[in-house]
């Protein structure tokens, strides 16, 4: 490209000299968005939603890092993230922090996601997979693509969890424009992410889903687990609606993909 000198036409600038047009820090408080009503008059949260952040890698702020599986190179390397934990750090008890570090070191062996186990809550919400909200008056279903995980949010006749489970037992209610979901009855086997953040069976999760625009929900979660944390703590993130035509939850029945990993060593060896 030859070196034509581009004469810079001085742009007569109307703005007074020295006026800085930096945008004000943080977005001004936009008037609260009011979602369209579902048929029963409640906010309509139906739709296919997905988080677009690195929380599933590590809910705390983290730098980018290499993949735990050398051969996957950059394709499975860890992207950096500003973290979704409000205030930055998870208030672990000392012994629980030690366990977290141990989990991290052995994450390739211990992370339940690798074995296609149900992701637990709130991890199911920010897996790198969509989930669909099917909202009726009595039950609100949250149907996740990963491993076919599913949650029934009981909006009526709430009861205690009859037994422990991976996805917990969810009782929901409406608070104005917000769906509040109170979940207990977890086992202690799921993780919050791939970095070894963990909980006990005493975990109590309170989630708040609030529509913030036609295509986004605000998702705020309070985590309580006195056995593992010194105080309750929060994470929050937007969820984005999948708007492509004919979007649907596909099947990701991953048991089949991990059987060799889990049971391969028990395969009959061909007789020599």
């Amino acid at each position: 490209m030859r070196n034509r000198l581009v004469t810079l036409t001085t742009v007569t600038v109307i703005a007074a000299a020295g006026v800085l047009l930096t945008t004000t820090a943080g977005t001004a408080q936009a008037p609260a968005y009011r979602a369209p009503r579902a048929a029963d008059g409640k906010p309509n949260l139906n739709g296919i939603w997905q988080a677009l952040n690195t929380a599933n890698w590590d809910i705390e702020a983290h730098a980018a890092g290499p993949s735990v599986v050398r051969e996957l190179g950059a394709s499975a390397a860890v992207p950096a993230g500003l973290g979704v934990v409000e205030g930055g750090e998870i208030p672990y008890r000392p012994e629980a922090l030690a366990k977290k570090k141990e989990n991290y070191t052995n994450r390739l062996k211990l992370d339940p996601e690798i074995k296609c186990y149900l992701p637990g809550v709130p991890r199911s919400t920010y897996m790198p997979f969509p989930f669909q909200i099917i909202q009726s008056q009595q039950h609100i279903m949250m149907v996740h693509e990963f491993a076919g995980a599913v949650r029934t949010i009981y909006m009526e006749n709430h009861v205690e969890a009859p037994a422990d489970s991976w996805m917990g037992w969810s009782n929901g209610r409406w608070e104005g424009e917000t769906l509040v979901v109170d979940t207990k009855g977890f086992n202690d086997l799921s993780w919050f992410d791939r970095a070894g953040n963990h909980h006990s069976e005493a975990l109590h999760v309170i989630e708040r889903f609030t529509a913030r625009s036609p295509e986004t929900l605000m998702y705020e979660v309070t985590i309580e687990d006195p056995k593992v944390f010194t105080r309750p703590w929060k994470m929050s993130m937007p969820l984005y609606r999948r708007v492509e035509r004919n979007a649907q939850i596909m099947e990701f029945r991953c048991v089949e993909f991990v059987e060799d990993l889990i049971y391969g060593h028990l395969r009959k060896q061909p007789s020599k």
Partner: protein
Amino acid sequence: MRTKLALVVAGIGVLLASAPVWAHHAFAAEFDVNKPLKLRGTLLKWEMVNPHSWFHLDVKDQDGKVVTWLIEGGSPNQLIRMGVTKNTVPIGTELVIEGYHAKDGTNKAVGRNFVLADGKRLFLGGSAPGGGGDKK
């Protein structure tokens, strides 16, 4: 409880149950038919999980040492519908298990029969403590 094989009523024809596609694996491949056993112990924990639930039982062996056995039972889901919860069978409950030892020699067995200290069979359908037939 032993009763004779039910007489097959001819005539009306054997209504072969539509062999519901049992999602099961031959337990005889997991447990050894030639190693029946009877265990008496106290319940450490009942893992109400699927596809089969597991009872963790502390059993005193001959020389008094306590060994934890894992006893395989059925899916808890229908019991839950009948009102059973994780608190129904308290920890420490005295249980007698008749069953078969696992083939791989570990302290595992399938629980053919779970009997409480008072001789009552555990959960038996409607008699589940706290349960009650098909809860309406």
